[in-house]
């Protein structure tokens, strides 16, 4: 009987512990009267960052994460939030669903909010957990499918907006009219995000006089050869190709097109470009443009100056990239939410969630200021076009603008 009793007691104890383990600690009051939730003490506020530090998109992800951490370091150097230092708690998702769940579970009891969850795959893996734990989360998953998840916020323009604005810009550049139509094509992935990007391009084309979508080839993430898709683009006669791709696919499409003698104007969403592509694609980027929802390192605005100064102070060995700018902006939004929650004397998850409603975030000129609204709407329809310099960095060719076509698409889709 003892042989059965001991294992039974052990299992019972384990089950009890795991039932208790899922719950975050309850709130308490700090010495300054601020209500404190998980991850908050009188001295610090822990903010989780779930990113890909060693997987397929680690280059951009690591750079972006550092941008957020440098923002936190700068805020801490100026006294923190409510006199508390922001501590980044990092989890490596490897851009894998299971790894994301494990990384989330490893930190969910210890952090107040998630300042960054990178990628739609990761968000989808943990959105049920986020909802269960009432975990306010900022998603670096700039698409509308992510935006509508509960407790998930996207504080920047989404890729769909960048692509839609790219269509109207291309039409304006070409002087497209009903008599002189512009033929465009979109290249997107076969997943739900690709479908959303393609739909935004279609809607923008419909709303812009003289623009016609003549091809919409798709690719699978595992594809290594794009001859079929580029042949389809070439045969369609598209003058402009909108790229809703990742950097590796961008290289494949632009390079294959060059080999097949097809030279359209390329308009890529910001996620399609990374500066390291400048070398392999040297000589092929004269007609390559990137539509970005936020500014670049070359902008002469207070926000970029602050970013560069912060990097020199807190990460002197690192080189910021345009993904760092994105991370910095997410850090900005996170700090704004924490500050508002602090002003309301409520640094619990409920307090942060309340703070995020209709939160105004001023990005100091890097991108137009936004209001987060109810968290389920597109916060900004502004983007601008950039060319690529020899070193791969982006250089703006105009100001931020919000096209009527992008706004109409958002309104039609309930965003």
């Amino acid at each position, binding site marked *: 009987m003892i042989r059965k009793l001991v294992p039974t007691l052990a299992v019972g104890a384990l089950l009890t512990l795991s039932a208790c383990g899922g719950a975050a600690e309850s709130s308490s009051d700090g010495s300054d009267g601020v209500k404190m939730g998980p991850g908050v003490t009188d001295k610090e506020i822990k903010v989780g960052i779930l990113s890909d*530090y*060693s*997987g*397929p998109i*680690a*280059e*951009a*992800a*690591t750079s972006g994460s550092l941008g957020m951490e440098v923002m936190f370091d700068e805020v801490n150097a100026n006294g923190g939030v409510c006199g508390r230092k922001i501590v980044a708690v990092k989890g490596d998702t490897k851009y894998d669903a299971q790894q994301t769940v494990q990384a989330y579970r490893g930190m969910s009891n210890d952090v107040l909010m998630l300042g960054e969850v990178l990628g739609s795959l990761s968000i989808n893996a943990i959105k049920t957990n986020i909802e269960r734990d009432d975990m306010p989360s900022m998603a670096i998953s700039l698409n509308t499918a992510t935006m509508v998840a509960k407790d998930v916020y996207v504080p920047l323009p989404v890729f769909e907006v960048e692509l839609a604005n790219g269509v109207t810009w291309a039409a304006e550049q070409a002087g497209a009219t009903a008599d002189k139509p512009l033929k465009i094509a979109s290249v997107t992935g*076969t997943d739900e995000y690709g479908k959303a990007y393609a739909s935004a391009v279609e809607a923008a084309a419909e709303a812009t006089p003289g623009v016609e979508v003549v091809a919409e*080839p*798709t*690719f*699978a993430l*595992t*594809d*290594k*050869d*794009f*001859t*079929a*898709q580029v*042949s*389809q683009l070439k*045969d369609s006669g598209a003058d402009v190709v909108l790229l809703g791709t990742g*950097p*590796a696919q961008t*290289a*494949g*499409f*632009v*390079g*294959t097109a*060059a*080999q*097949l*003698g097809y030279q359209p104007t390329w308009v890529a969403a910001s996620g399609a470009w*990374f500066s*390291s*592509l400048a*070398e*392999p694609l040297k000589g*092929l980027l004269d007609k390559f443009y990137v539509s970005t929802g936020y500014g670049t390192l070359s902008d002469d605005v207070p926000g970029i100056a602050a970013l560069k100064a912060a990097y020199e102070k807190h990460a002197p060995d690192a080189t910021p990239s345009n993904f760092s700018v994105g991370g910095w902006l997410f850090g900005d939004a996170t700090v704004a939410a924490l500050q508002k929650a602090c002003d309301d004397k409520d640094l619990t998850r409920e307090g942060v969630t309340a703070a995020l409603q209709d939160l105004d975030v001023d990005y100091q000129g890097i991108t137009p200021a936004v209001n987060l609204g109810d968290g389920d709407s597109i916060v900004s329809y502004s983007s601008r076009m950039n060319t690529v310099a020899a070193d791969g960095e982006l250089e703006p060719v105009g100001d931020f603008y919000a096209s009527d076509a992008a706004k109409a698409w958002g309104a039609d889709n309930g965003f």
Partner: protein
Amino acid sequence: MTLFLQLGFQGVALGMVYALIALGFVIMTKGSNTFNFAHGEFVAVGAYVVLALMPHMPYWLAFLGSVFVTVSLALLVEATLLRKLISKGLTTVVLATLGVSVMVHALVLMVWGVGTKGSAGPVGSGTVEIGDVVLPLSSIATIVSSVLVLIALLVFFRRTSYGLALRATASHQEAALAQGIDVGRMFALSWAIAAALAVVAGIFLASFPRVVSPSIAVVALAAIPAIVIGGMDSLAGAVVGGVIVGLIQVLGAGYLSDYGGGRLHEVLPYVLMLLVLVVRPYGLFGSRGIERV
């Protein structure tokens, strides 16, 4: 017709890369009875080392340097891991190679970082046109180089004493031992050859317009259907299987993009693999195993 020829050519080029990777798997399996899950990471190491050396020396020297490094890594793994674990059973060895795969991946990230780099191929973006069909120089180089490597392998196995010894070991280890063949050395030789093939595969997998990135190792696993289709113990089967997979992927992307949400070409190699397993489980060119009971 032009499109078919264009896609067919690219499919063969991609298929030859899969063939080289599949050959590496098969040679290791036949030579040392080990399915090495770290082989994809050897492909990645080969590409990264070539890219790192290219700016400092002629390409052929960079290639040889990469072969040296990758073969050394393979031999280190074989000597320290395989030999120690070979008596513990096949499952243990295979699981160990999975662990090696994780370690080598981490090593690649530590040394070269996480980002995409340049292209590691010997030729750039040039093309040759035959009628309306455009033949990228990188694809021509892939096919020509792969064929030369296959001929070299054939000569090695048929005409050299080491090749004969390796075939004997693959056929029957005890009999080979009885003939005085150093079976341990043959294990090492099979891993060295596989590693050299991995370098060739790696540079063409990362040839323009493709780039070197940590995900190369994952792509290498796409050669697994090739091995199963061709036969786990057949060198010719590895080549045929690789070309079949490459053709299915590229032609499928061209002609089946309207079906299956545009993902049918991703799945078809695995469907074919399952069909072969059901109808002819030893593969198209593999040998049926017979056990005396």
